């Protein structure tokens, strides 16, 4: 054998190994990754979904002055939670029509949160009564910590899945030897070849995003995954406090003196922050020991236009209103983490960039989905009897149906639950979440009981029907039907209604395409041999 031949064989061997690695790391946690990707994708519109989930809260036609709203909420806290050691309010903005605050409560029974939260009317500062729901927050939390399990376990599972994803991306790039030559190639109606082309296209076009989102996802929880460096370097409480200040504007409150004095004007403090960062660029106001001489007020900078989650804030003496310190920058390591964190969350985005995030993340979801489906497409052709596949094949096929089509049904059911569950129901927000999982479990049961193709088609139709009818349900159950939203220029409600129809159309197209699809008989004859060879070479290029 020539040296060139050796090199060629070695190269093919590495590529084949990477292909096997890509296939198996993609499959083993592929269903988890699909769920993480899809719920993470919709989380780019988390705030909008949360607004939609609380139709009782009126739309803000104009953005209120953050300084005035902050003062109104501060006044409300004198009545709602006098003596709380700490409260924090996120002020209304273009994406949030209410102020959202949480505050510390007296320690209760072990296991209780020690926090309470609520929404506040921007116009009055009063706490508002809206339905008990997690809204978009559920999808956001689910995408990195899941549910029905301790938060730490969920985050570990998300981290392992993200690590698998990172390996799948790197091995996929090595395996796909014709990234540039076949950049625009899609061969329609060629079975496995078409699935491979679609998977490649979805992977390559968004490759910078897919790599970034996976890596930065790991960075967001890096202190949990790899705590040892921090444990060795940071030991004393003072060091820990210093590190916390590098990462967040929300720090543990100090000790009160017990000497009472009214809180100085929060409005004036926010005004000073507005002079520094702009009128509408205020994020939160954090207050500790309000009403005590030791009170502190921290006003943080907003997220827009700043690709960093590193804290930027102004700290005031709460008793006198005097500016104590300004934090404009953090150390290099903290800033690196802040930038990577911000890239993952995308909160700095204007509306166009947010849509770009959503669309490219959607292609990432489709990339994982096509990869999962391809595992069965590739193996179905080699089954001795396609009517009686082996257990592993059946398992993957059924899990694919429930995790791809079933998740669409379950997520839409969550939104139906938001509109249909009685507002007086105790533990309502938990019921919404339970409904999501009940429906998802039913889709799995349906996938197991029905023939595979029928299960795909029926679940895709079910998702399409639920999505298409959701705007009608919204029109019947709220005062904010689509025509009202359009007439008033309420693009959050109108956008969600219209997006439901776009997604319904997508599911209809998928259902029709799946219904038309015919499983090809295994290639046995001589005439079929070239096609089989093409498939084999396609596997190597995968």
């Amino acid at each position: 054998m020539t040296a060139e031949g050796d090199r060629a064989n070695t190269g093919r061997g590495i590529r084949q190994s990477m292909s096997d690695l890509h296939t198996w790391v993609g499959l083993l946690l592929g269903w988890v990754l699909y769920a993480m990707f899809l719920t993470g994708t919709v989380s780019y519109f988390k705030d909008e979904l949360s607004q939609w989930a609380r139709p009782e809260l009126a739309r803000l036609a104009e953005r209120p002055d953050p300084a005035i709203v902050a003062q109104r909420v501060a006044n409300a806290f004198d009545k709602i939670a006098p003596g709380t050691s700490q409260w924090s309010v996120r002020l209304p903005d273009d994406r949030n029509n209410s102020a959202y605050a949480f505050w510390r409560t007296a320690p209760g029974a072990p296991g209780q949160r020690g926090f309470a939260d609520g929404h506040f009317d921007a116009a009055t500062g009063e706490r508002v009564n809206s339905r008990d729901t997690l809204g978009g927050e559920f999808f956001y939390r689910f995408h990195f910590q899941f549910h029905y399990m301790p938060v730490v376990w969920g985050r570990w599972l998300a981290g392992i899945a993200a690590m698998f994803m990172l390996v799948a991306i790197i091995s996929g790039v090595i395996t796909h030897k014709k990234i540039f030559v076949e950049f625009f190639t899609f061969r329609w109606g060629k079975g496995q070849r078409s699935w491979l082309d679609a998977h490649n296209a979805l992977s390559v076009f968004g490759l910078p995003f897919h790599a970034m989102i996976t890596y930065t996802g790991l960075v967001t929880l890096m202190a949990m995954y790899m705590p040892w460096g921090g444990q060795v370097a940071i030991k004393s409480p003072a060091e820990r406090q210093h590190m916390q200040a590098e990462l967040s504007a929300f720090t543990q409150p100090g000790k009160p003196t017990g000497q009472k004095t009214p809180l100085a004007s929060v409005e004036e403090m926010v005004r000073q922050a507005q002079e520094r960062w702009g009128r509408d660029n205020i994020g939160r106001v954090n207050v500790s020991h309000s009403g005590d001489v030791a009170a502190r007020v921290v006003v943080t900078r907003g997220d827009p236009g700043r690709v960093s989650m590193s804290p930027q804030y102004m700290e005031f003496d709460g008793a006198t209103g005097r500016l104590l310190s300004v934090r404009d920058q953090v150390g290099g390591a903290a800033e690196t983490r802040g930038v990577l964190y911000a890239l993952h969350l995308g909160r700095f985005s204007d509306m166009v960039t947010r849509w770009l995030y959503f669309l490219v993340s959607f292609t990432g979801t489709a990339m994982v989905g096509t990869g999962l489906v391809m595992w069965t497409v590739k193996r179905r052709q080699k089954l001795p009897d396609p009517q009686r596949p082996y257990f592993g094949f059946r398992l993957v096929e059924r899990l694919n149906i429930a995790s791809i089509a079933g998740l669409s049904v379950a997520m839409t059911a969550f939104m139906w639950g938001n509109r249909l569950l009685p507002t007086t129901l105790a533990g309502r927000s938990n019921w919404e979440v339970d409904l999501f999982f009940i429906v998802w479990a039913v889709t799995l049961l349906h996938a197991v009981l029905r023939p595979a193709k029928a299960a795909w088609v029926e679940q895709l139709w079910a998702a399409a029907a639920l999505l298409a009818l959701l705007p009608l349900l919204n029109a019947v159950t709220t005062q904010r039907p689509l025509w009202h939203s359009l007439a008033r220029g309420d693009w959050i409600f109108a956008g969600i209604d219209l997006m439901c129809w776009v997604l319904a159309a997508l599911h209809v197209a998928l259902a029709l395409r799946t219904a038309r699809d015919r499983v090809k008989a295994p290639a046995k004859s001589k005439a079929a041999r070239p096609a089989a060879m093409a498939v084999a070479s396609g596997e190597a290029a995968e």
Partner: protein
Amino acid sequence: MIHLVAFVLSLSGFGALACAAHRQQRDLFGKALQPATRHMLRLVAFAALLCAFGVLVAQHGWALGLVMFSGHTSLAAGIVVCVLIGYARTKEQKLRHR
């Protein structure tokens, strides 16, 4: 407005790159283009993409500009492929009807 300019430039850039690719030349023009034409298309493509990048960075700074550029190019490439698929399918159906 800047987004629109950057997107149109990205779309033009990937459109030109697609025209310069061998397989797509056969699909679109029925033959391979001259090497000089291919080089010209690639030059135009890179110039358009560079302009999109420049416009975004000039307007929004390096950090935001880079993020936006990545989003526009991903979307533009996806749209070019969808258009190519649509074109090939229409052509195929027309041929079948003849």
